[in-house]
Protein backbone atom coordinates (compact mmCIF):
# COMPACT_ATOMS: atom_id res chain seq x y z
CA UNK A 1 0.00 0.00 0.00
CA UNK A 2 1.40 3.34 -0.94
CA UNK A 3 -0.64 6.43 -0.75
CA UNK A 4 1.90 9.13 -0.14
CA UNK A 5 1.14 10.98 -3.35
CA UNK A 6 -2.37 12.22 -3.79
CA UNK A 7 -4.35 14.01 -6.45
CA UNK A 8 -7.03 16.68 -6.03
CA UNK A 9 -10.68 15.91 -5.27
CA UNK A 10 -11.73 16.78 -8.84
CA UNK A 11 -10.22 13.48 -9.94
CA UNK A 12 -12.96 11.70 -7.98
CA UNK A 13 -15.75 13.07 -10.21
CA UNK A 14 -15.17 10.71 -13.18
CA UNK A 15 -14.75 7.76 -10.78
CA UNK A 16 -18.03 8.40 -8.99
CA UNK A 17 -19.73 9.18 -12.29
CA UNK A 18 -18.59 5.90 -13.86
CA UNK A 19 -19.90 3.84 -10.94
CA UNK A 20 -23.16 5.81 -10.90
CA UNK A 21 -23.66 5.34 -14.64
CA UNK A 22 -23.18 1.60 -14.27
CA UNK A 23 -25.62 1.59 -11.37
CA UNK A 24 -28.25 3.52 -13.28
CA UNK A 25 -27.85 1.69 -16.58
CA UNK A 26 -27.62 -1.75 -15.03
CA UNK A 27 -31.17 -1.78 -13.78
CA UNK A 28 -34.07 -3.58 -15.38
CA UNK A 29 -36.18 -0.43 -15.25
CA UNK A 30 -33.67 1.30 -17.55
CA UNK A 31 -34.56 -1.17 -20.28
CA UNK A 32 -38.22 -0.19 -19.88
CA UNK A 33 -37.24 3.46 -20.14
CA UNK A 34 -35.29 2.78 -23.33
CA UNK A 35 -38.39 1.12 -24.76
CA UNK A 36 -40.49 4.09 -23.67
CA UNK A 37 -38.03 6.47 -25.31
CA UNK A 38 -38.63 4.70 -28.62
CA UNK A 39 -42.27 5.78 -28.54
CA UNK A 40 -41.73 9.29 -30.00
CA UNK A 41 -39.46 7.78 -32.64
CA UNK A 42 -42.10 5.24 -33.65
CA UNK A 43 -44.76 7.95 -33.72
CA UNK A 44 -42.52 10.10 -35.91
CA UNK A 45 -42.20 7.21 -38.33
CA UNK A 46 -45.99 6.79 -38.30
CA UNK A 47 -46.50 10.51 -38.95
CA UNK A 48 -44.00 10.42 -41.76
CA UNK A 49 -45.69 7.44 -43.38
CA UNK A 50 -49.12 9.05 -43.01
CA UNK A 51 -47.90 12.10 -44.90
CA UNK A 52 -48.79 15.79 -44.34
CA UNK A 53 -52.28 16.81 -43.26
CA UNK A 54 -54.94 18.48 -45.40
CA UNK A 55 -54.12 21.86 -46.89
CA UNK A 56 -55.06 24.72 -44.55
CA UNK A 57 -54.61 22.49 -41.49
CA UNK A 58 -51.76 22.71 -38.97
CA UNK A 59 -48.22 22.57 -40.31
CA UNK A 60 -46.15 19.48 -39.72
CA UNK A 61 -44.19 21.34 -37.03
CA UNK A 62 -47.45 22.26 -35.23
CA UNK A 63 -48.90 18.78 -35.60
CA UNK A 64 -45.79 16.96 -34.40
CA UNK A 65 -45.00 19.45 -31.61
CA UNK A 66 -48.48 19.16 -30.11
CA UNK A 67 -49.21 15.48 -30.56
CA UNK A 68 -45.82 13.90 -30.01
CA UNK A 69 -43.43 16.36 -28.36
CA UNK A 70 -45.91 17.93 -25.92
CA UNK A 71 -48.19 14.96 -25.26
CA UNK A 72 -45.61 12.16 -25.14
CA UNK A 73 -42.08 13.51 -24.76
CA UNK A 74 -42.74 16.41 -22.38
CA UNK A 75 -45.61 14.96 -20.41
CA UNK A 76 -44.51 11.35 -19.95
CA UNK A 77 -41.02 10.55 -21.21
CA UNK A 78 -38.99 13.45 -19.79
CA UNK A 79 -40.42 13.57 -16.25
CA UNK A 80 -40.50 9.80 -15.86
CA UNK A 81 -36.94 9.25 -17.06
CA UNK A 82 -35.44 12.20 -15.21
CA UNK A 83 -37.28 11.52 -11.94
CA UNK A 84 -36.26 7.85 -12.00
CA UNK A 85 -32.61 8.66 -12.64
CA UNK A 86 -32.62 11.62 -10.25
CA UNK A 87 -33.99 9.61 -7.35
CA UNK A 88 -31.86 6.59 -8.28
CA UNK A 89 -28.54 8.44 -8.27
CA UNK A 90 -28.33 8.25 -4.47
CA UNK A 91 -31.41 6.23 -3.66
CA UNK A 92 -30.11 2.75 -4.35
CA UNK A 93 -26.88 3.40 -2.45
CA UNK A 94 -28.79 4.66 0.55
CA UNK A 95 -31.06 1.61 0.41
CA UNK A 96 -28.29 -0.98 0.21
CA UNK A 97 -25.79 0.85 2.41
CA UNK A 98 -23.09 1.31 -0.25
CA UNK A 99 -23.34 5.08 0.32
CA UNK A 100 -20.88 4.46 3.15
CA UNK A 101 -18.11 3.88 0.58
CA UNK A 102 -18.65 7.40 -0.75
CA UNK A 103 -19.10 9.08 2.61
CA UNK A 104 -16.00 7.54 4.19
CA UNK A 105 -13.73 9.36 1.78
CA UNK A 106 -11.84 12.65 2.17
CA UNK A 107 -13.96 14.36 -0.46
CA UNK A 108 -15.89 17.61 -0.22
CA UNK A 109 -19.56 16.64 -0.38
CA UNK A 110 -20.20 18.95 -3.32
CA UNK A 111 -17.88 16.77 -5.39
CA UNK A 112 -20.05 13.73 -4.65
CA UNK A 113 -23.30 15.60 -5.42
CA UNK A 114 -21.90 17.09 -8.62
CA UNK A 115 -20.66 13.72 -9.87
CA UNK A 116 -24.01 12.09 -9.10
CA UNK A 117 -26.02 14.87 -10.73
CA UNK A 118 -23.85 14.92 -13.86
CA UNK A 119 -24.24 11.16 -14.24
CA UNK A 120 -28.00 11.20 -13.85
CA UNK A 121 -28.45 14.21 -16.15
CA UNK A 122 -26.22 12.59 -18.78
CA UNK A 123 -28.27 9.38 -18.80
CA UNK A 124 -31.56 11.29 -18.82
CA UNK A 125 -30.43 13.50 -21.71
CA UNK A 126 -29.11 10.50 -23.62
CA UNK A 127 -32.49 8.84 -23.46
CA UNK A 128 -34.81 11.79 -23.89
CA UNK A 129 -32.60 14.00 -26.06
CA UNK A 130 -31.57 11.29 -28.51
CA UNK A 131 -35.16 10.07 -28.83
CA UNK A 132 -36.37 13.63 -29.45
CA UNK A 133 -33.61 14.34 -31.96
CA UNK A 134 -34.30 11.13 -33.84
CA UNK A 135 -38.04 11.76 -33.90
CA UNK A 136 -37.48 15.32 -35.13
CA UNK A 137 -35.03 14.19 -37.79
CA UNK A 138 -37.55 11.69 -39.12
CA UNK A 139 -40.65 13.87 -39.15
CA UNK A 140 -39.55 17.52 -39.01
CA UNK A 141 -36.32 17.81 -40.96
CA UNK A 142 -38.15 17.44 -44.28
CA UNK A 143 -40.10 20.62 -43.34
CA UNK A 144 -36.95 22.67 -43.85
CA UNK A 145 -35.27 25.12 -41.50
CA UNK A 146 -38.37 25.47 -39.32
CA UNK A 147 -38.36 21.74 -38.73
CA UNK A 148 -34.66 21.70 -37.89
CA UNK A 149 -34.98 24.63 -35.49
CA UNK A 150 -38.06 23.07 -33.89
CA UNK A 151 -36.11 19.84 -33.35
CA UNK A 152 -33.20 21.73 -31.80
CA UNK A 153 -35.61 23.58 -29.51
CA UNK A 154 -37.24 20.33 -28.43
CA UNK A 155 -33.87 18.73 -27.66
CA UNK A 156 -32.89 21.83 -25.69
CA UNK A 157 -36.11 21.54 -23.70
CA UNK A 158 -35.14 17.96 -22.85
CA UNK A 159 -31.70 19.07 -21.67
CA UNK A 160 -33.10 21.86 -19.46
CA UNK A 161 -35.92 19.65 -18.17
CA UNK A 162 -33.54 16.76 -17.42
CA UNK A 163 -31.21 19.03 -15.44
CA UNK A 164 -34.11 20.45 -13.39
CA UNK A 165 -35.96 17.21 -12.67
CA UNK A 166 -32.76 15.32 -11.83
CA UNK A 167 -31.44 18.03 -9.50
CA UNK A 168 -34.70 18.50 -7.62
CA UNK A 169 -35.43 14.81 -7.16
CA UNK A 170 -31.82 13.90 -6.41
CA UNK A 171 -31.97 16.39 -3.54
CA UNK A 172 -35.32 15.03 -2.41
CA UNK A 173 -33.96 11.46 -2.35
CA UNK A 174 -31.52 12.54 0.37
CA UNK A 175 -34.43 13.49 2.62
CA UNK A 176 -36.89 10.67 2.06
CA UNK A 177 -36.97 7.17 0.68
CA UNK A 178 -40.28 8.02 -0.95
CA UNK A 179 -38.78 10.53 -3.37
CA UNK A 180 -39.83 8.45 -6.37
CA UNK A 181 -43.46 8.27 -5.23
CA UNK A 182 -43.45 12.00 -4.54
CA UNK A 183 -41.90 12.59 -7.97
CA UNK A 184 -44.54 10.57 -9.76
CA UNK A 185 -47.20 12.41 -7.73
CA UNK A 186 -45.67 15.75 -8.72
CA UNK A 187 -45.65 14.71 -12.36
CA UNK A 188 -49.25 13.51 -12.40
CA UNK A 189 -50.97 15.89 -10.00
CA UNK A 190 -49.00 19.12 -10.06
CA UNK A 191 -47.87 19.21 -13.67
CA UNK A 192 -50.49 16.90 -15.12
CA UNK A 193 -53.64 18.31 -13.60
CA UNK A 194 -53.15 21.44 -11.51
CA UNK A 195 -51.00 23.32 -14.01
CA UNK A 196 -53.82 23.08 -16.57
CA UNK A 197 -56.39 24.39 -14.11
CA UNK A 198 -54.18 26.98 -12.42
CA UNK A 199 -52.00 28.77 -14.99
CA UNK A 200 -50.44 30.81 -12.17
CA UNK A 201 -48.32 27.90 -10.99
CA UNK A 202 -46.21 28.03 -14.16
CA UNK A 203 -43.44 29.60 -12.10
CA UNK A 204 -43.27 26.43 -10.04
CA UNK A 205 -43.38 23.90 -12.85
CA UNK A 206 -40.27 22.25 -14.27
CA UNK A 207 -42.29 21.37 -17.37
CA UNK A 208 -42.90 25.09 -17.94
CA UNK A 209 -39.20 25.86 -17.48
CA UNK A 210 -38.34 23.32 -20.18
CA UNK A 211 -41.05 24.55 -22.58
CA UNK A 212 -40.09 28.18 -21.99
CA UNK A 213 -36.38 27.45 -22.48
CA UNK A 214 -37.14 26.00 -25.92
CA UNK A 215 -38.28 29.47 -27.00
CA UNK A 216 -34.65 30.60 -26.86
CA UNK A 217 -34.16 28.59 -30.06
CA UNK A 218 -37.57 28.40 -31.68
CA UNK A 219 -41.05 29.45 -30.67
CA UNK A 220 -42.76 26.08 -30.75
CA UNK A 221 -46.46 26.38 -31.57
CA UNK A 222 -47.64 25.35 -28.11
CA UNK A 223 -50.20 27.33 -26.15
CA UNK A 224 -48.99 25.50 -23.07
CA UNK A 225 -45.66 27.35 -22.90
CA UNK A 226 -46.46 30.23 -20.56
CA UNK A 227 -43.02 31.54 -19.62
CA UNK A 228 -40.67 33.60 -21.74
CA UNK A 229 -37.30 32.06 -22.58
CA UNK A 230 -35.48 34.45 -20.23
CA UNK A 231 -37.78 33.80 -17.30
CA UNK A 232 -37.76 30.04 -17.89
CA UNK A 233 -33.96 29.83 -18.08
CA UNK A 234 -33.57 32.00 -15.00
CA UNK A 235 -36.02 29.91 -12.98
CA UNK A 236 -34.48 26.67 -14.24
CA UNK A 237 -31.04 27.89 -13.19
CA UNK A 238 -32.34 28.83 -9.77
CA UNK A 239 -34.06 25.45 -9.38
CA UNK A 240 -30.92 23.49 -10.34
CA UNK A 241 -28.62 25.64 -8.21
CA UNK A 242 -30.88 25.61 -5.17
CA UNK A 243 -31.55 21.88 -5.42
CA UNK A 244 -27.86 21.00 -5.67
CA UNK A 245 -26.96 23.31 -2.80
CA UNK A 246 -29.65 21.70 -0.66
CA UNK A 247 -28.33 18.27 -1.67
CA UNK A 248 -24.79 19.23 -0.60
CA UNK A 249 -26.12 20.64 2.67
CA UNK A 250 -28.09 17.47 3.30
CA UNK A 251 -25.24 15.12 2.40
CA UNK A 252 -22.93 16.99 4.76
CA UNK A 253 -25.40 16.24 7.55
CA UNK A 254 -26.27 12.77 6.38
CA UNK A 255 -26.19 10.29 9.23
CA UNK A 256 -26.01 6.55 9.05
CA UNK A 257 -28.21 4.75 11.52
CA UNK A 258 -26.72 2.51 14.17
CA UNK A 259 -28.25 -0.58 12.57
CA UNK A 260 -29.17 -3.55 14.70
CA UNK A 261 -26.52 -2.51 17.18
Amino acid at each position, binding site marked *: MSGEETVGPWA*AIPEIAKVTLRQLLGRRRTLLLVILSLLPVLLAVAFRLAGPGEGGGPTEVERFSRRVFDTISMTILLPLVAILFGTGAFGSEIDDGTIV*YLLAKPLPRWIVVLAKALSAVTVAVLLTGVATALAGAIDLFPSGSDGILATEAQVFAMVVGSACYVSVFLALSLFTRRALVIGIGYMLVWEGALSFMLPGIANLSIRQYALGAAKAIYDLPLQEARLSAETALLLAGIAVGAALLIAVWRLTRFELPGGSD
Partner: protein
Amino acid sequence: MTTQPLSPGAPGAPGAPGTTAEVPAIELSRVARWYGNVVAVNDVSFRLGAGVTGLLGPNGAGKTTLLHMLAGFLAPSAGEVRVLGRSPHRDPSVYRQIGLVPEREAVYPFLTGFEYVRFNARLQGLRDADGAARAAIARVGLEDAMNRPVGTYSKGMRQRVKVAGSLVHDPQVLLLDEPFNGMDPRQRIAMMDLLGHLAAAGRTILFSSHILEEVEQVGTQILVMVAGRLAASGDFRAIRALMTDRPHRITIRSSDDRRLATALMVNPAVFAVELTSAGLAVQTAQLGVFRSLIAGASRSAGVRLLEVVSSDESLESVFDYLVRR
Protein backbone atom coordinates in the same frame (compact mmCIF):
# COMPACT_ATOMS: atom_id res chain seq x y z
CA MET B 1 -1.35 -0.42 23.32
CA THR B 2 -3.30 1.55 25.81
CA THR B 3 -6.87 0.64 26.44
CA GLN B 4 -7.92 2.84 29.25
CA PRO B 5 -11.45 3.41 30.35
CA LEU B 6 -11.61 6.99 31.53
CA SER B 7 -12.76 7.79 34.95
CA PRO B 8 -16.39 8.82 34.49
CA GLY B 9 -15.95 11.74 36.80
CA ALA B 10 -12.89 13.15 35.15
CA PRO B 11 -12.60 12.22 31.53
CA GLY B 12 -9.20 12.92 30.18
CA ALA B 13 -8.04 14.41 33.41
CA PRO B 14 -4.27 14.85 33.57
CA GLY B 15 -2.71 12.05 35.46
CA ALA B 16 -5.59 9.70 34.87
CA PRO B 17 -4.60 6.14 33.96
CA GLY B 18 -3.52 5.95 30.38
CA THR B 19 -3.00 9.65 29.95
CA THR B 20 0.12 10.21 27.94
CA ALA B 21 1.71 13.20 26.36
CA GLU B 22 0.66 11.74 22.98
CA VAL B 23 -2.80 12.24 21.58
CA PRO B 24 -4.63 8.90 21.76
CA ALA B 25 -5.74 7.56 18.39
CA ILE B 26 -9.29 7.14 19.67
CA GLU B 27 -10.79 8.95 22.62
CA LEU B 28 -14.36 8.93 23.86
CA SER B 29 -15.39 11.08 26.80
CA ARG B 30 -18.77 10.38 28.37
CA VAL B 31 -20.31 9.70 24.99
CA ALA B 32 -24.02 9.03 24.65
CA ARG B 33 -26.27 8.64 21.66
CA TRP B 34 -29.99 8.33 21.73
CA TYR B 35 -32.74 8.05 19.13
CA GLY B 36 -35.86 9.63 20.56
CA ASN B 37 -36.45 7.78 23.81
CA VAL B 38 -34.12 4.91 22.94
CA VAL B 39 -30.63 5.15 24.38
CA ALA B 40 -28.22 3.29 22.07
CA VAL B 41 -24.96 4.33 23.76
CA ASN B 42 -24.79 5.60 27.29
CA ASP B 43 -21.93 7.38 29.04
CA VAL B 44 -19.06 5.56 27.36
CA SER B 45 -15.48 6.68 27.90
CA PHE B 46 -12.23 5.08 26.78
CA ARG B 47 -8.97 5.73 25.00
CA LEU B 48 -7.18 3.56 22.51
CA GLY B 49 -3.66 3.67 21.18
CA ALA B 50 -1.93 1.41 18.67
CA GLY B 51 -2.94 -2.25 18.72
CA VAL B 52 -5.97 -4.42 18.18
CA THR B 53 -8.98 -3.93 20.42
CA GLY B 54 -12.09 -6.06 20.28
CA LEU B 55 -15.44 -4.43 20.87
CA LEU B 56 -17.53 -7.25 22.28
CA GLY B 57 -21.21 -7.26 22.98
CA PRO B 58 -24.47 -8.98 22.14
CA ASN B 59 -26.66 -7.80 19.28
CA GLY B 60 -28.25 -4.49 20.14
CA ALA B 61 -25.49 -3.52 22.58
CA GLY B 62 -24.64 -0.32 20.70
CA LYS B 63 -21.47 -1.47 18.95
CA THR B 64 -22.43 -0.25 15.46
CA THR B 65 -23.68 3.05 16.83
CA LEU B 66 -20.36 3.50 18.60
CA LEU B 67 -18.38 2.66 15.46
CA HIS B 68 -20.52 5.01 13.38
CA MET B 69 -19.81 7.81 15.83
CA LEU B 70 -16.08 7.05 15.61
CA ALA B 71 -16.35 7.05 11.81
CA GLY B 72 -18.05 10.45 11.88
CA PHE B 73 -21.39 9.19 10.54
CA LEU B 74 -23.27 10.01 13.71
CA ALA B 75 -22.94 12.92 16.08
CA PRO B 76 -22.92 12.01 19.76
CA SER B 77 -25.99 13.26 21.62
CA ALA B 78 -23.68 14.03 24.54
CA GLY B 79 -19.97 13.80 25.22
CA GLU B 80 -17.05 14.01 22.86
CA VAL B 81 -15.60 11.69 20.25
CA ARG B 82 -12.09 12.33 19.01
CA VAL B 83 -10.09 10.39 16.46
CA LEU B 84 -6.43 11.35 16.12
CA GLY B 85 -7.17 14.41 18.20
CA ARG B 86 -10.12 15.79 16.26
CA SER B 87 -13.84 15.32 15.97
CA PRO B 88 -14.62 13.10 12.98
CA HIS B 89 -18.17 14.40 12.55
CA ARG B 90 -18.69 16.48 9.39
CA ASP B 91 -14.98 16.49 8.67
CA PRO B 92 -14.35 14.42 5.54
CA SER B 93 -10.60 15.08 5.67
CA VAL B 94 -10.39 12.72 8.65
CA TYR B 95 -10.99 9.80 6.26
CA ARG B 96 -7.43 10.09 4.99
CA GLN B 97 -6.51 8.50 8.33
CA ILE B 98 -9.53 6.25 8.92
CA GLY B 99 -10.47 3.01 7.20
CA LEU B 100 -13.94 1.62 7.76
CA VAL B 101 -15.38 -1.82 7.13
CA PRO B 102 -19.15 -1.55 7.59
CA GLU B 103 -21.29 -4.38 8.86
CA ARG B 104 -23.61 -4.42 5.87
CA GLU B 105 -22.46 -6.75 3.17
CA ALA B 106 -23.41 -4.70 0.16
CA VAL B 107 -20.58 -3.90 -2.22
CA TYR B 108 -21.14 -2.65 -5.78
CA PRO B 109 -21.89 -6.05 -7.34
CA PHE B 110 -21.04 -5.04 -10.91
CA LEU B 111 -17.45 -4.03 -10.07
CA THR B 112 -14.69 -6.60 -10.00
CA GLY B 113 -12.76 -6.92 -6.75
CA PHE B 114 -9.89 -4.98 -8.29
CA GLU B 115 -12.17 -2.24 -9.63
CA TYR B 116 -13.81 -1.87 -6.24
CA VAL B 117 -10.52 -1.50 -4.36
CA ARG B 118 -9.12 0.83 -7.04
CA PHE B 119 -12.32 2.89 -6.78
CA ASN B 120 -11.59 3.32 -3.07
CA ALA B 121 -7.97 4.22 -3.85
CA ARG B 122 -9.00 6.85 -6.39
CA LEU B 123 -11.56 8.41 -4.07
CA GLN B 124 -8.77 8.59 -1.51
CA GLY B 125 -6.88 10.58 -4.11
CA LEU B 126 -3.99 8.12 -4.42
CA ARG B 127 -1.87 8.84 -7.48
CA ASP B 128 -0.86 5.20 -7.98
CA ALA B 129 -4.34 3.78 -7.40
CA ASP B 130 -3.67 0.61 -9.41
CA GLY B 131 -0.55 -0.23 -7.41
CA ALA B 132 -2.23 0.50 -4.09
CA ALA B 133 -5.23 -1.63 -5.06
CA ARG B 134 -3.05 -4.60 -6.05
CA ALA B 135 -1.10 -4.37 -2.79
CA ALA B 136 -4.28 -4.20 -0.68
CA ILE B 137 -5.81 -7.16 -2.53
CA ALA B 138 -2.63 -9.16 -1.96
CA ARG B 139 -2.85 -8.42 1.77
CA VAL B 140 -6.26 -10.04 2.00
CA GLY B 141 -5.30 -12.89 -0.35
CA LEU B 142 -7.83 -12.20 -3.08
CA GLU B 143 -5.49 -12.07 -6.07
CA ASP B 144 -7.07 -15.10 -7.75
CA ALA B 145 -10.55 -13.59 -7.63
CA MET B 146 -9.70 -9.94 -8.18
CA ASN B 147 -10.99 -9.89 -11.76
CA ARG B 148 -14.34 -11.44 -10.91
CA PRO B 149 -17.39 -9.26 -10.22
CA VAL B 150 -17.98 -8.79 -6.50
CA GLY B 151 -21.54 -10.02 -7.06
CA THR B 152 -20.15 -13.52 -7.60
CA TYR B 153 -18.15 -13.50 -4.34
CA SER B 154 -18.98 -15.57 -1.29
CA LYS B 155 -19.82 -13.75 1.93
CA GLY B 156 -16.29 -14.25 3.25
CA MET B 157 -14.73 -12.95 0.03
CA ARG B 158 -16.93 -9.86 0.17
CA GLN B 159 -15.73 -9.23 3.71
CA ARG B 160 -12.13 -9.51 2.55
CA VAL B 161 -12.58 -7.18 -0.41
CA LYS B 162 -14.23 -4.67 1.94
CA VAL B 163 -11.19 -4.89 4.21
CA ALA B 164 -8.90 -4.39 1.20
CA GLY B 165 -10.88 -1.30 0.22
CA SER B 166 -10.66 0.08 3.73
CA LEU B 167 -6.90 -0.26 4.06
CA VAL B 168 -5.89 0.70 0.51
CA HIS B 169 -4.80 4.14 1.72
CA ASP B 170 -2.87 2.72 4.69
CA PRO B 171 -4.97 4.41 7.38
CA GLN B 172 -3.77 5.04 10.89
CA VAL B 173 -7.08 3.92 12.38
CA LEU B 174 -9.07 0.94 11.13
CA LEU B 175 -12.66 0.42 12.27
CA LEU B 176 -14.24 -2.92 11.44
CA ASP B 177 -17.83 -3.84 12.17
CA GLU B 178 -18.22 -7.63 12.53
CA PRO B 179 -15.36 -8.29 10.07
CA PHE B 180 -15.31 -12.06 10.55
CA ASN B 181 -18.93 -12.59 9.56
CA GLY B 182 -19.16 -15.21 6.85
CA MET B 183 -15.47 -16.11 6.85
CA ASP B 184 -14.42 -19.74 7.01
CA PRO B 185 -11.84 -20.72 9.69
CA ARG B 186 -8.88 -20.42 7.29
CA GLN B 187 -9.98 -16.96 6.18
CA ARG B 188 -10.48 -15.93 9.79
CA ILE B 189 -6.98 -16.93 10.74
CA ALA B 190 -5.55 -15.05 7.75
CA MET B 191 -7.58 -11.95 8.63
CA MET B 192 -6.53 -12.18 12.28
CA ASP B 193 -2.89 -12.39 11.17
CA LEU B 194 -3.37 -9.34 8.96
CA LEU B 195 -4.88 -7.32 11.80
CA GLY B 196 -2.02 -8.43 14.05
CA HIS B 197 0.56 -7.25 11.52
CA LEU B 198 -1.17 -3.91 11.08
CA ALA B 199 -1.23 -3.46 14.85
CA ALA B 200 2.46 -4.34 15.08
CA ALA B 201 3.08 -1.62 12.48
CA GLY B 202 1.55 0.92 14.85
CA ARG B 203 -2.01 1.06 13.55
CA THR B 204 -5.00 1.37 15.84
CA ILE B 205 -7.60 -1.27 15.07
CA LEU B 206 -11.01 -1.53 16.67
CA PHE B 207 -13.28 -4.34 15.55
CA SER B 208 -16.68 -5.37 16.83
CA SER B 209 -17.97 -8.86 17.38
CA HIS B 210 -20.62 -10.65 19.35
CA ILE B 211 -18.52 -13.82 19.51
CA LEU B 212 -16.11 -14.06 22.42
CA GLU B 213 -13.81 -16.57 20.71
CA GLU B 214 -13.26 -14.21 17.78
CA VAL B 215 -12.24 -11.41 20.06
CA GLU B 216 -9.91 -13.41 22.24
CA GLN B 217 -8.02 -14.75 19.24
CA VAL B 218 -7.26 -11.27 17.89
CA GLY B 219 -7.60 -8.59 20.48
CA THR B 220 -5.32 -8.48 23.46
CA GLN B 221 -7.58 -5.74 24.76
CA ILE B 222 -11.32 -5.79 24.77
CA LEU B 223 -14.18 -3.45 25.44
CA VAL B 224 -17.39 -5.13 26.50
CA MET B 225 -20.61 -3.29 25.73
CA VAL B 226 -23.96 -4.28 27.12
CA ALA B 227 -27.19 -2.34 26.59
CA GLY B 228 -25.29 0.74 25.43
CA ARG B 229 -22.91 0.82 28.38
CA LEU B 230 -19.27 -0.09 28.66
CA ALA B 231 -19.50 -3.07 31.01
CA ALA B 232 -15.82 -3.91 31.15
CA SER B 233 -12.57 -3.01 29.46
CA GLY B 234 -8.97 -4.10 29.61
CA ASP B 235 -6.94 -7.25 29.05
CA PHE B 236 -9.13 -9.99 27.62
CA ARG B 237 -7.64 -12.67 29.89
CA ALA B 238 -8.77 -10.87 33.00
CA ILE B 239 -12.24 -10.35 31.60
CA ARG B 240 -12.37 -13.90 30.31
CA ALA B 241 -11.55 -15.09 33.83
CA LEU B 242 -14.41 -13.02 35.20
CA MET B 243 -16.70 -14.61 32.66
CA THR B 244 -15.51 -18.15 33.44
CA ASP B 245 -15.41 -17.84 37.21
CA ARG B 246 -18.85 -16.32 37.52
CA PRO B 247 -21.59 -18.31 39.25
CA HIS B 248 -23.12 -20.87 36.91
CA ARG B 249 -26.60 -22.24 37.32
CA ILE B 250 -27.15 -25.86 36.36
CA THR B 251 -30.44 -27.74 36.34
CA ILE B 252 -30.32 -31.50 36.97
CA ARG B 253 -33.04 -34.10 36.61
CA SER B 254 -32.31 -37.42 38.29
CA SER B 255 -33.93 -40.53 39.67
CA ASP B 256 -33.84 -38.98 43.19
CA ASP B 257 -33.25 -35.21 43.24
CA ARG B 258 -33.47 -34.95 47.06
CA ARG B 259 -30.75 -37.57 47.68
CA LEU B 260 -28.52 -36.01 45.00
CA ALA B 261 -28.98 -32.58 46.64
CA THR B 262 -27.73 -33.97 49.94
CA ALA B 263 -24.68 -35.46 48.22
CA LEU B 264 -23.83 -32.25 46.36
CA MET B 265 -24.26 -29.86 49.30
CA VAL B 266 -21.12 -31.17 51.00
CA ASN B 267 -18.98 -30.41 47.96
CA PRO B 268 -17.03 -27.12 48.17
CA ALA B 269 -17.49 -26.43 44.45
CA VAL B 270 -21.22 -26.12 45.04
CA PHE B 271 -22.50 -23.11 46.93
CA ALA B 272 -26.25 -23.40 46.52
CA VAL B 273 -28.73 -26.17 45.87
CA GLU B 274 -32.46 -25.75 45.37
CA LEU B 275 -35.23 -28.22 44.65
CA THR B 276 -37.50 -26.85 41.95
CA SER B 277 -40.34 -28.20 39.86
CA ALA B 278 -37.94 -28.44 36.90
CA GLY B 279 -35.45 -30.47 38.91
CA LEU B 280 -32.45 -29.72 41.07
CA ALA B 281 -31.01 -26.20 40.61
CA VAL B 282 -27.32 -26.11 41.48
CA GLN B 283 -25.06 -23.04 41.58
CA THR B 284 -21.30 -23.31 41.25
CA ALA B 285 -18.45 -20.88 40.66
CA GLN B 286 -16.19 -23.67 39.40
CA LEU B 287 -17.88 -25.10 36.39
CA GLY B 288 -14.99 -27.35 35.36
CA VAL B 289 -14.68 -28.90 38.83
CA PHE B 290 -18.42 -29.42 39.03
CA ARG B 291 -18.51 -31.16 35.65
CA SER B 292 -15.83 -33.62 36.76
CA LEU B 293 -17.49 -34.44 40.10
CA ILE B 294 -21.16 -34.74 39.20
CA ALA B 295 -20.93 -38.22 37.70
CA GLY B 296 -18.98 -39.63 40.69
CA ALA B 297 -21.20 -37.90 43.23
CA SER B 298 -24.38 -39.29 41.71
CA ARG B 299 -22.90 -42.76 41.45
CA SER B 300 -21.82 -42.67 45.11
CA ALA B 301 -25.29 -41.55 46.14
CA GLY B 302 -26.89 -44.30 44.07
CA VAL B 303 -28.77 -41.80 41.93
CA ARG B 304 -29.22 -42.06 38.16
CA LEU B 305 -28.70 -38.82 36.20
CA LEU B 306 -31.41 -38.14 33.61
CA GLU B 307 -30.44 -34.66 32.42
CA VAL B 308 -27.81 -32.00 33.20
CA VAL B 309 -28.46 -28.59 31.64
CA SER B 310 -26.40 -25.46 32.06
CA SER B 311 -29.12 -22.87 32.03
CA ASP B 312 -27.14 -19.64 31.68
CA GLU B 313 -24.45 -20.28 29.11
CA SER B 314 -25.68 -17.74 26.60
CA LEU B 315 -23.42 -14.82 25.82
CA GLU B 316 -26.19 -12.50 26.94
CA SER B 317 -26.15 -14.05 30.41
CA VAL B 318 -22.38 -13.65 30.57
CA PHE B 319 -22.69 -9.99 29.64
CA ASP B 320 -25.53 -9.58 32.07
CA TYR B 321 -23.31 -10.94 34.83
CA LEU B 322 -20.56 -8.47 33.97
CA VAL B 323 -23.01 -5.59 34.12
CA ARG B 324 -24.36 -6.64 37.51
CA ARG B 325 -20.87 -6.80 38.91
